[in-house]
């Protein structure tokens, strides 16, 4: 609901003390400010997790390298994975959702602004807790131990027997705490979408962005909760002498895997659906056409949501499940490829017959389409259980999921940054720097992740701090590492662009892209109350209707 406060902060005046501005930001319940806090938080952790990746790749640049010890390496890949998923990608996506959903549905804020703030701070605290392990985890072996059990922390490696000290506890607690934040945000998104739409905006007239985040929030509710349960069980084992995953007492290591992946698989759809949301808003605008097949896109999204709850054990094909169980999960995993493919075809059809403008947001979304296609197909390969018996737990899988998360999600996210930066800051970014970022990152991405498939096909498992020469892996690892530096350069250009443009960019105006959804009808940046008058809409593209009164959408939808 609307924040009743009429004393909104002054901007740009010298008399506004820094402490006051800091206080406003720390106590804010405004969805736009919380969105920006999430995004900045995520960018900071992107740099940290990126450095962890650089350390990993330098260590693996050649066989028997000794850039870091095995203990440090194992902490690096654990922290890299955990940070990227929980403290980079999830927060940045929640940030965009928080910022944009109320604007897109014609509301003044999210349904529960204080819950929103609480959720952000819980997530933030979780990240700090994870990194506090570097200094705080006094195990038997001395001070400062980050967790080193891998981001999925299989039992019984996480039992007190094999993980002495507190590093695993920091992992567990950090995720438990940030999980509460995720669930809070999901409750907020679901309630906002269901209860706060402006007059005329039925669910069928909502932007796809809102639909995709809505399904994403539903998945968070159903998926993060099992992780919460598993974390509590792990804490019972580690602190109260419980036996949930204690194989010596008859417990099962496999049941941890089931619980984790019941979270872990829908989690990747939590990550990818908002990426689809960005693409579904950007591609139509830069093709100058509406999204092709809106209802089918909604249907496919809902189908993906449901099916994603039934595929989890494709992460466990090598664990020794029965032939029938393996066969079932092959089928459900292949099934989910169908609605996913349908989405790619609909984006393709949106561009078809359009007038494509190659601004930076669109460049990233076009790359997203090609790369997500490839990622989906390597996913189909992995769904073939016998093939998975080779490819699983190898660098092929690492290449596959980075192809999805970097090639798909991150590219789409960069597109979103450039697309909505003018709205959030009021300034235009530098198109030249944007394109430089794109090319640097594209080259780096392909050098690293195309070639990363090869060592997997040649037998290189994952999570190894070094490897043997003479297995045919050396050259590919070298190329993979080189690509990382191009990506790092691209990210630096990106951050530089954001900063420079924020201070020196041209004024953007409310609608620099000639777009059609409600957020473009507000000033840039929008005032705290979003809309002076709550709009009424008649179609999926309210601004198209206003700009084209002779052939409005509602006549043809």
């Amino acid at each position, binding site marked *: 609901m609307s924040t009743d406060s009429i004393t909104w902060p002054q901007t740009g005046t010298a008399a506004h003390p820094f402490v006051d501005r800091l206080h406003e930001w720390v106590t804010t319940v405004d969805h736009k400010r919380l969105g920006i806090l999430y995004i900045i938080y995520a960018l900071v952790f992107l740099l940290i997790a990126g450095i962890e990746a650089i350390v990993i790749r330098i260590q693996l640049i050649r066989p028997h390298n000794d850039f870091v010890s095995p203990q440090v390496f194992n902490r690096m890949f654990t922290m890299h994975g955990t940070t990227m998923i929980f403290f980079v990608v999830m927060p940045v996506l929640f940030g965009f959702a928080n910022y944009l959903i109320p604007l897109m549905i014609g509301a003044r804020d999210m349904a529960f602004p204080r819950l929103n703030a609480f959720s952000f701070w819980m997530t933030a605290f979780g990240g700090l807790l994870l990194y506090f392990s570097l200094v705080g985890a006094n195990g038997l072996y001395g001070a400062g131990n980050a967790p080193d059990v891998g981001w999925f922390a299989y039992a*019984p490696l996480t039992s007190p027997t094999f993980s002495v000290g507190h590093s695993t506890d920091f992992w567990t607690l950090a995720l438990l705490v940030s999980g509460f934040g995720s669930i809070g945000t999901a409750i907020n998104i679901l309630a906002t979408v269901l209860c706060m739409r402006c007059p005329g905006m039925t669910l069928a007239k909502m932007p796809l962005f809102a639909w995709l985040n809505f399904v994403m929030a539903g998945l968070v509710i159903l998926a993060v909760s099992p992780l919460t349960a598993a974390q509590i069980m792990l804490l019972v084992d580690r602190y109260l002498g419980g036996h949930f995953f204690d194989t010596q007492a008859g*417990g099962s290591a496999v049941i941890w895997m089931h619980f984790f992946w019941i979270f872990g698989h829908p989690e990747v759809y939590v990550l990818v659906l908002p990426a689809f949301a960005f693409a579904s808003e950007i591609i139509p605008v830069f*093709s100058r056409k509406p999204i092709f*097949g809106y209802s089918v896109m909604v249907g496919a999204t809902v189908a993906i949501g449901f099916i994603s709850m039934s595929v989890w054990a494709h992460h466990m094909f*090598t664990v*020794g499940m029965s032939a029938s169980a393996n066969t079932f999960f092959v089928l459900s995993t292949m099934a989910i490829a169908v609605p996913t493919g349908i989405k790619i075809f609909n984006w393709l059809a949106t561009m078809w017959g359009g007038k494509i403008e190659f601004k930076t947001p669109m460049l990233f979304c076009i790359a997203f389409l090609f790369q997500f296609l*490839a990622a989906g197909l390597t996913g189909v390969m992995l769904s073939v259980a*016998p093939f998975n018996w080779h490819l699983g737990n*190898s660098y092929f899988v690492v290449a596959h999921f980075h192809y999805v998360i970097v090639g798909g999600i991150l590219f789409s996210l960069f597109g979103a940054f450039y697309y909505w930066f003018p709205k959030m800051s009021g300034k235009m970014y530098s198109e030249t720097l944007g394109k430089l970022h794109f090319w640097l990152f594209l080259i780096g991405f392909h050098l690293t992740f195309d070639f990363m498939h090869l060592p997997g096909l040649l037998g290189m498992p994952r999570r190894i701090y070094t490897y043997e020469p003479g297995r045919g892996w050396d050259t590919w690892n070298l190329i993979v590492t080189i690509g990382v530096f191009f990506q790092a350069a691209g990210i630096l250009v990106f951050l530089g662009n954001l900063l420079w443009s924020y201070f020196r960019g041209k004024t953007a105006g409310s609608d620099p892209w000639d777009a059609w959804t409600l957020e473009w009808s507000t000033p840039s940046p929008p005032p705290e109350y979003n809309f002076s008058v709550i709009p009424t809409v008649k179609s999926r593209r309210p601004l198209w209707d206003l700009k084209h009164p002779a052939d409005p959408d509602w006549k043809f939808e």
Partner: protein
Amino acid sequence: MRGGKNSNTVGVLQTFVFVLSSAVIAVAAKTTAPPLSPTNIFAPASTPAESIFGLSIFVLAVTAAIFVVVFTLLAYSVVKFRKRKNDDGREPPQVYGSNQVEVAWTVIPILIVVALFMATARVIADIQKASPPANAIEVVAIGHQFWWEYRYPGLHVVTANELHVPVSDPQHPTPTFIKLLSADTDHSFWVPRLAGKTDLIPNHPNHMWIDPHETGLYLGQCAQYCGTQHAKMLLRVYVQPRDEFDRWIQQQREPASTSDVVSEGQRVFQTTACINCHAVAGTVANGRFGPDLTHLMSRETIAAGAALNTPENLRLWIQKPDAIKPGSLMPAMELADHELDAVTAYLETLR
């Protein structure tokens, strides 16, 4: 306008990179056959690996075809429908959807899924439902942090780290069936040329089988993160002609070669903590935490493949395991130099 040039360059560059990658993959698959890559999954030498290979070629062909078609359509649309320099500024026709097209690109993928699924289900059954014939060699593999224990229950052999199996003639197969157990955390047995990987999970026995068609040494390594030295838990499978295998079994069954004189090294070995972890058949040493050392000298490597089995490496391993495998569970024994020499000499007698 800059956009137009970029679109061509995007398309061309993407095409170039993908063509290059696929060429590289194809070349890699062909040219990195042994010995350049002894762990190439596309060079199967045993029936399970061969079944997977056949299925994987089918899957690769289908996915490659899909990729080429959709990639081409995407590239075409990006080039053909770009905004031209002489654009009249009008919006293009606003098309909202098409039911026929949606049906088409739903039904075709479903059919492809059905085909892939049927092929997959068949191979799953072939591999997982195979039962051991009467002449199968039975092995129990027990995963430890960070080494492999092998027992041949029917043949009364206990050894470590280097698995010997007889070669299997496709006309008269003599497969080896392996039961997979774990003494501590999760591990995974992956020798790509022989079979897909199967995990070793405590309190969850698993089974796999291999029937290698060619003699030779097959390499692999642990493929489930098991702790600090997961990376150096290497696998070496020696596939031998039947008579050589039988001789190896005979030799492994013997107790440790002894001499009448109890050597200085044997005394050091048996009075320090060595016997807490290690076993030497026919002596008082019967620890099970570490590898069985009865026939240590019959192995080409030590520390689960991390180092060659030379006297220098052996001495170094006993003196300071962290120099070879930092984080392994073998403690540095803190022996005096002459004790170290003596123990090494003793171990060198364990053929």
